[in-house]
């Protein structure tokens, strides 16, 4: 290429050009890999974190009635991100022949808070019409599985449930 003053702009070497482009891509890729990789790991890390569990006190055994589901609340001191919080929660406890079953208080469909209908002897979810039997099995409605059960143990006259520690 010649410009009006007759100065050449220098020959373009296609091989050199391709080589430079490859180097640019390599270096750019390296920076992108380090920055993107660490950033992605950082961003996705909540999904990769292991879950720790611990026993939480639900109170003395005499609080629970035979054959009748009882709502029980608990206080769990746990880490929530950079905070330590006293988180309260609630579960349903069913005592049958000295056997304790504890249900998570959220409907297994989409997590609505269901309630015990003592007339019908059924758990009724207020959202999409999910109905569960006393033992937690699905009686009607959209729930895909029975009510979630939480591991329990009794110790020194108190009931304990195993909950996830939120970290």
């Amino acid at each position, binding site marked *: 290429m010649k410009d009006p003053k007759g100065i050449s702009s220098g020959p373009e070497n296609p091989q050199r050009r391709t080589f430079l482009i490859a*180097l640019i891509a390599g270096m*750019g890729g390296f920076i992108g890999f380090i920055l993107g990789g660490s*950033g992605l790991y*950082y961003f996705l*890390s909540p999904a990769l974190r292991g879950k720790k569990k611990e026993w939480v006190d639900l109170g003395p055994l005499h609080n629970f009635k035979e054959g009748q589901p009882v709502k029980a609340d608990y206080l769990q*001191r746990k880490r929530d991100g*950079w905070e330590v919080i006293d988180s309260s929660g609630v579960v349903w406890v069913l005592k049958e022949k000295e056997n304790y079953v504890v249900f998570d208080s959220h409907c297994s469909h989409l997590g609505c808070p269901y309630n015990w209908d003592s007339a019908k002897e059924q758990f009724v979810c207020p959202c999409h019409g999910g109905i569960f039997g006393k033992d937690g099995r699905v009686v009607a409605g959209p729930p895909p599985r029975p009510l979630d059960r939480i591991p329990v143990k009794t110790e020194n006259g108190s009931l304990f449930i195993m909950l996830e520690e939120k970290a």
Partner: protein
Amino acid sequence: MKEILDWLDERTGWRKLKEVILDRHIPKGVDWRYTLGSVTLFFFVLQVVTGILLGMHYSPSPDHAYDSVKYLTNEVPMGKLLRGLHKWGATGMVVSVFLHMLRVFFMGAYKYPREVTWFSGVFLFFLVIGFGFTGYLLPWDQKAYWATTVGAHMVEQVPYLGDALAKIMKGGSDLGTVTLTRFYAIHVLVFPALTLLFMAVHLFLVVWHGISAPPEKDPTLSDKDPDWKARLKSRYAELKAQGKSFWPYIIFKDTVAVTLVFLIVLGVALWKGAELEDLANPTDSSYNPRPEWYFLSVFQLLKYFPGKLEAFAIVLLPLIVVSILFLLPFIDKGPKRHPGDRKWLVLAGWMSILGVVFFTVQGARSPLTNPVMEQNPLVMQGKRIFTDLNCLYCHTLNGRGGSVGPVLDLVAMRRDKNWLGAHFRNPKKLTPGTKMPNFNLLDGEVESLVAYMSTLGATTYSAEAPRLFEDNCASCHKFQGTGEFIAVDLSHIGRARDAGYLAAYIKDPVKMNPDAAMGGYADQLTPEQILDLANYLYQKGK
């Protein structure tokens, strides 16, 4: 494929854009010194990416800021690295924007027709400084708190308006909650938006005028010549025609430079990380406030302006600097760009650089007036939990608190760490019938509380302590009837220093006092012996 590209071209005009931006020719002679702008741009991108990620685990309130930064640094995977990159990227950006400005200054590249490019650049330079100032308050550690306190007081010195300005900056009369949210909003919302705006103008003008060619010495060129602008333009066209296209030749150089600085910043981030000092403590009078290194020159400069003159230094000097930077293209006009043709200006430039470097070095070397105290982070954490749980509602410490539980002043003399730990985990199990509630404390909380409680009243010394003094200290120091009076008489040392200070001094005197002639005893004595000795000197010397 071609059809899609054609379709896009009709609607976006990308072929024209590619031609104008990527295929444009860059004048001959554009070398490595011209990569500084791209390096600064890269740092901006790096700061945006790492900043967004840090923002995901940051809470801008004095109650949470410190803990959230600590959490993201220590517990979120890669958090330490990303925070390190953000911190050192900030340092890198200050350096690169400064060097970029110097390159433009010495080459006279701010001259016709690039004056507006220069103005937008000066705005960007001050934005980078502003990012630094607002950014390092955010972790809410000691450095953050005290450096910003000093900054706010500097603003207060402005005659007449100072008080109002400082209040606007702090969002009230105290440095606190509102200050932090204001700084946060400015750091992550206002400044990035302004930076994008000025960067758009800056980069558009760089493409519009083309990158300035290296200055040439041309004695025939002068502003007396009515045609000098046209001559400049035609010479620029010549050089441009001889140069290579931006893509890939110039971008290659930029990429190499960017990769090099990235490797440096990455290395420093991995090696040094980003430190987090102790939680901001407005009552701490033993802290040595020091600004970030790029403010050290200003910090040092203030020492030379006592009393009323300080207002001059705080208002007039920055005003002069800002004015000079903005007026530069009007002070130095005409076609002559070569440093050899602008000797006085170049000399003034060098003087300014030397001044900044000199004051920065002086500032960095200025001795720390307060001794550097090592504080046990566990103890500090324990103190916070002690306050958060309102322990003083039942217990008394230093004469304040309730009377339900035992007085805690000398608790460490009565209870050892095992007892305290078991007590905090389950008070009723250890002491049946106690009124102390079970707080269900987490392991870390128990550990911190035990560490704090163990410091209360643990300042007694053993029977071995006087002998330790005889063996190690008495050959130089006098202490209440024993020892030689060669070095300082320690008889009343307890009135001036506490046991913690004395222990740190015995361990490493030079750290506490750079002029100390005494050698450290970290090798001769065990940590327990050093503490014992310190307690002895403190208790008996009170």
